[in-house]
């Protein structure tokens, strides 16, 4: 740990790290966004509907009082 702390103590310009982080995020976000939007819609529909296929998905019903 001493090596790590010695190394980290001498980092200059740490204040720009969050800007770098921001850029990395935006880059990954754009890639992820484009790839996700290119996914075929039929695959999505199948996934979306999958949770409704069981006995719990009946219409809501109550005993009116």
């Amino acid at each position, binding site marked *: 740990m001493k090596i*790590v*702390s010695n190394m*980290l*103590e001498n*980092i200059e310009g*740490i*204040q720009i*790290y*969050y800007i770098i*982080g*921001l850029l990395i*995020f935006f880059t990954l*976000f754009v890639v*992820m*966004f484009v*790839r*996700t*939007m290119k*996914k075929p819609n039929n*695959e*999505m*529909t199948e*996934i*979306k*509907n*999958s*949770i*409704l296929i*069981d006995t*719990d*998905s*009946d*219409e*809501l*019903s*109550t*005993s*009116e*009082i």
Partner: protein
Amino acid sequence: MENQKFYYDNKIVKLFIKATIIWGITAVTVGLLIAFQLAYPAYNFGLEFTTFGRMRPLHTNAVIFAFVGNAIFAGVYYSMQKLLKARMFSDVLSKIHFWGWQLIILLAAITFTLGISTSKEYAELEWPIDILITIVWVVFGWNMIGTIVKRRVQHIYAAIWWYLASFLGVAILHVVNSFELPVSLFKSYSIYAGAQDAVVQWWYGHNAVAFFLTTPFLGLMYYYLPKAANRPIYSYKLSIIHFWSLIFLYMWAGPHHLLYQALPDWAQALGVTFSIMLIAPSWGGMINGLLTLRGAWDKVRDSAVLKFFVVAVTAYGMSTFEGPMMSLKNVNQITHFTDWTIAHVHIAGMGWNAGLIFGMLYWMIPRLYKTKLYSEKLANTHFWIATLAILVYAIPLYWAAVTQWLMWREYTPEGFLAYPNFLETLTHILPMYTVRIVGGTLFLIGFLIMMYNLYKTMKSGSVEDNEAAEAPAFVSEGPRNPLKETVHRWMERKIVKFSIWVFIALVIGGAVEIIPMIFIKSNVPTIAAVTPYTPLELEGRDIYVSEGCHTCHSQVVRPFRWETDRYGEYSKIGEFVYDHPYQWGSRRTGPDLARAGYVGGPMYKNAAWHYNHFMNPQKMNEQSIMPNYAWFAKKELNLNLVPKKIRAMQTLRVPYAEGFDEIAVDDLLKQAKGIVADLKSSNIEIEPTKQMVAMIAYLHKLGGDIAPSVVEVGESSTETIEDIKLLTGEEDLNAAREIFTQTCVVCHGADGKGIATFPDLTDDEWISGDSPLNVYQSISNGKITKGMVPYKDTYSEKQIIQLTSYILLKLNSDEDSK
């Protein structure tokens, strides 16, 4: 493919549901109690066990971990089994999880009531309970991941991504924030100090909101909303995008809780930037939730379940817009330390979290008990009462926040604070606190209606503890075929890879935020004048921490003129290097105490004042809402722990001299005897080993290291005025009476006869003479050693002459008052 028979474990779901309801009622009731305490201090009952400082963490922890926690587990255990077509991995782990979690809640309730607390918001529990939380949380994760591994479906549905992220997120946050050095079974010190501790704490605190109050609820939304509406989620693509964006961004935003405070600018900028960016993924979730109801809005009209879900998702959208706005520095100066934060939190808690829980319970219980909801009308009544309660609760607090902030920063034309006495700004908003009680009461009534409705529903049906089900056996699809399967779709069936990517997304933000604060020395510049706490001051600090004084009193002065004029010099990062843990607070129900030991400063009070104030705050000022702490004068310090505490501090690199632990008790007693002698000069008798003495020592340490000496204050405060003429006009005397009743009454009483040991202004005994000039100078320059604050920087020359005239012409000449 042949179907496999298996059984859902409904018993564990039932247990968590019951715990949710019981703890929910408890949490809201305690919330109502502290709302009463803030409006009417008599509801502290004069008992140490029921003071606001101890009850407030009990309320927050009960809501977050008892009510919301049990609801999350109920919802997760029910939906996971259905989504994965599998029974929970291990019944034993489920039971350990349930009973372990209830034990944690019980221990929390007991320890908070006894005043055992680390004071770190939403992480106040002491180290043995922290370890227990870690174990139980690992059991939960083990059970969850085990269930995912033995599933009968290929792909993991979106709801479970959120559950997984919640498990990993909370695990990381809890472990890193809970690093503490034990001194005894009930006492530990955070290994982080001052600004570092603040960063770690709000990295945790903000992300406790994220990974306990947001991500699991988004998972629940992705399951229960489509089920209740009987419609698929609006956009699965959107769910992918907002999942990864949200879990990545949340971890960076913590420093927005520390704006304008003693923190490097880069860290504050980081918090603001990522907070604003958080709007996008948060609203992605809200949009996905609301648009799921496309074509189903007719159902919302009749269904209380869907109504609760709509309010929940809407409240989520509102809160996740409001939060980033509150992170803007110019907005933050209004919202921070005022009731705005409280209103914001309750919109999210009562709307988003409770709303989703109520909807989920109304949907799940009839299905679990194979019956119908006892009464939809009662459920709808609950909905309208709960929704009204949110508004009645939050609107007065927004009003109170803006009102108080405006009063804090109001100046007279002469350039003095218009409301120099903090209490004035508080008493002005107390009517709003009373209205808040109405909001809380309504919410509790709604909760009780729900409890009755669900009880009747449960009575009318029965749970099949082991519900039979069948599904095709799981057959691995093998390696990814790039032509048939996208990367994300492939990851959805690869639990380990998916978890690793979630972990990476989570840790980046925390690492960037915390590592530089801890390791890079230039981020925490030290101040040579700042010295470690003496053993007596440390004892006082430990009492301050355990009593939760930070819930009302901040200890950080922001660099605004209206704060430095009221409290003194703004706070620097180097002042807090020996603070394990930090005590900056997040709400000022009482004044900031960072300069309480700054002799000659506006916040300084002498030992006798503190003694009398702790004994009976309302006697000092009948409008005060502070609970009394009379037991400080009776309870003994634990001197056996003193050497251990010093050694613990040495381990944390606090520079006490080698062997200091051996003479620490002697040092403590020596300092304590000095305070006892000081109090005796005011006719107050107390033993040096009482908690009261340590508290006074601690308060006199605050800001004292960077204050000029008393001599310097005295020398610089020589008045040049040679004589004054008393003012006899009604207007002047009325203006003086107003100042007197706002400020001077605290020591001299409303009738001027003096409270406890403070001077009687109506008799013929004057410490510094009774000529108009003598009285003028006493007010202007103060009498610091006697506890009299100098008011020349608080009131104008004319106002001080008015006060002098009022004292000599009205109070001192009134025969009736003698």
